[in-house]
């Protein structure tokens, strides 16, 4: 269990993290998600001990770890750049934390081989990192993290240097790893798809503040505010202001593209501006006059052309209402 109490961080004058409270349960897969520069890495590095806090308390398994050096926190980290030791073989890379812990060589050997088996690295143990592909390097970095059997794993955007296809398969591998190890994982990403697919619990960060904490479906169904509403979900939720919102006694109303139906007797009318056929789905950009431009997900077989006029209806109960302060209304 990792608990942050009023944790703050400023670099000189700049308050990057003005004060965060958060509890991470044992065995949880927690994802910190938010736009670039919002302080995700900083928060992770505070937990790791690579940066000092400017205030607040970080406790790990009930022990105050705020002033412990990274080496004493029993956490393992996987960096965006992998940060492998280029002068050591894969075997030595993975064994390095064990060597630092002064473990006996036979046990080191056993653990390295075990990790290599889990991660399919058996054939590469004697290569240098430079001779590996991006995905293999990522696995070595993970191997180096798991051999120590840490209290928790910290990942900082581990997949952002991989190509799209590899990203999907590594994502699944990390999820499977979590299921088999059942160790706490804290995972930082700016990609909400990764957050949605991997997390038990998502922490949405914006400008160093927590906007919302919850399971992926909670965030999807009931975003706490406009920021989360706009950030989670792809394509983005449609946000409508003005008279249409006033009809629902709100400042802003939100409706996801998949919750708008094309129907001849719908209340909204618009002109198709663009239609993207993905095969399974068709995304329409509809110019709906006073409502603004709406994104609508239609079935894969729907054939619409720019210039066509459509009528649309929001699905009942899917409309979200937000007040003047941007917070969701009940």
């Amino acid at each position, binding site marked *: 269990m990792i608990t942050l109490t009023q944790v703050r961080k400023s670099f000189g004058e700049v308050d990057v993290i003005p004060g965060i409270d958060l509890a991470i349960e044992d065995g949880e897969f927690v994802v910190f998600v938010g736009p670039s520069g919002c302080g995700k890495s900083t928060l992770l590095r505070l937990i*790791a001990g*690579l940066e000092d806090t400017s205030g607040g308390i970080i406790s790990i398994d009930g022990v105050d770890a705020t002033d412990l*050096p*990274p*080496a004493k926190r029993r*956490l*393992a*980290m996987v*960096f*965006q*750049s992998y*940060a*492998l*030791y*280029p*002068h050591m073989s894969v075997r030595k890379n993975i064994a*390095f*934390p064990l060597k*630092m*812990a002064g473990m006996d060589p036979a046990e080191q050997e056993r653990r390295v081989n075990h990790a290599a088996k889990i991660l399919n690295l058996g054939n590469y143990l004697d290569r240098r990192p430079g001779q590996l592909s991006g995905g293999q390097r990522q696995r070595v970095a993970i191997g*180096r993290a798991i051999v*120590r059997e840490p209290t928790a794993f910290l990942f900082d955007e581990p997949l952002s240097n991989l190509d799209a296809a590899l990203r999907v398969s590594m994502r699944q591998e990390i999820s499977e790893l979590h299921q088999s190890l059942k160790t706490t994982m804290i995972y930082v990403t700016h990609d909400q798809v990764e957050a949605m697919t991997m997390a038990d619990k998502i922490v949405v960060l914006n400008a160093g503040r927590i906007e919302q904490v919850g399971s992926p479906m909670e965030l999807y169904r009931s975003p706490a505010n406009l920021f989360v509403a706009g950030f989670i979900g792809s394509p983005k939720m449609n946000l409508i202001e003005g008279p249409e919102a006033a009809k629902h006694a709100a400042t802003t109303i939100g409706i996801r593209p998949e919750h708008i139906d094309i129907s001849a007797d719908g209340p909204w009318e618009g002109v198709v501006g663009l239609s993207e056929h993905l095969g399974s789905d068709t995304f329409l950009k509809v110019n709906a006059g006073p409502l603004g431009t709406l994104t609508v997900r239609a079935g894969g077989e729907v054939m619409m052309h720019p210039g066509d006029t459509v009528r649309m209806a929001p699905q009942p109960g899917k409309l979200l209402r937000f007040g003047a302060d941007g917070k969701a209304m009940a």
Partner: protein
Amino acid sequence: MARKVSNTRKAVVTAAAWTMGFLIFFPILWIIILGFKSEGDAIKTPLQVLFSDWTLQSYHDVQERSNYGRHFWNSVILSVGSTLIALAIAIPAAWSMAFVPGRRTKDLLMWMLSTKMMPAVGVLVPMYLLFRDFGLLDSRIGLVAVLTLINLPIVVWMLYTYFKEIPGEILEAARMDGASLRSEILYVLTPMAVPGIASTLLLNIILAWNEAFWTLQLTTSQAAPLTQFIASYSSPEGLFYAKLSAASTMAIAPILILGWFSQKQLVRGLTFGAVK
């Protein structure tokens, strides 16, 4: 990108470049040749010199008469010793500046460099008197200390520019892996920086080997390196061209070889990273 260059043009450039190379190298070539001649032949006209007999006599004479060996070892000890000590002091310092930079780091680097720009002659008198009073004149210890200090700024600078190229995340990874600061520097940073450390080592051995102000001022015989040994030939006693050449060849050969290995790093080291 690579384009065909006409062969005539290439031939002209080749001829010009080789001519220039030959002219610039000629003085060195000439002492190498003279070293293998007898004193009598060495002062003849160039053509006569070329076609006279070859002999190892001068090398024998130099070895026997003037204690070449002792001077050679002094040069080795002074240059290698001062460089190793400077490295031992500079590696931790460069680690600090490269990986834990503060607001003052840049000023500190510039200040270190500025000590290098102080002309030696500005402190000649006190250094001479200090050495005299502490009985360090003509001692290797004193000279090693001076050479260490005059090269320390360059060593720190070179290491700093090399360390800057190593991603900090790798050192952080080591820290997460439970490495102490000592292990971090010993097992991760130093091995990764081996090429940089090696070229720093090489360049500074060269600079210390050729240092010809303090070595001339502060030594006479016991601790005198090759610079002083060669300088002792400046007052000629009879025919000495061949012996001077043989001695010179032996004095410059090791460093010529090291130097050719380090040409690339030379630029970087001597311009304090301003030209790479």
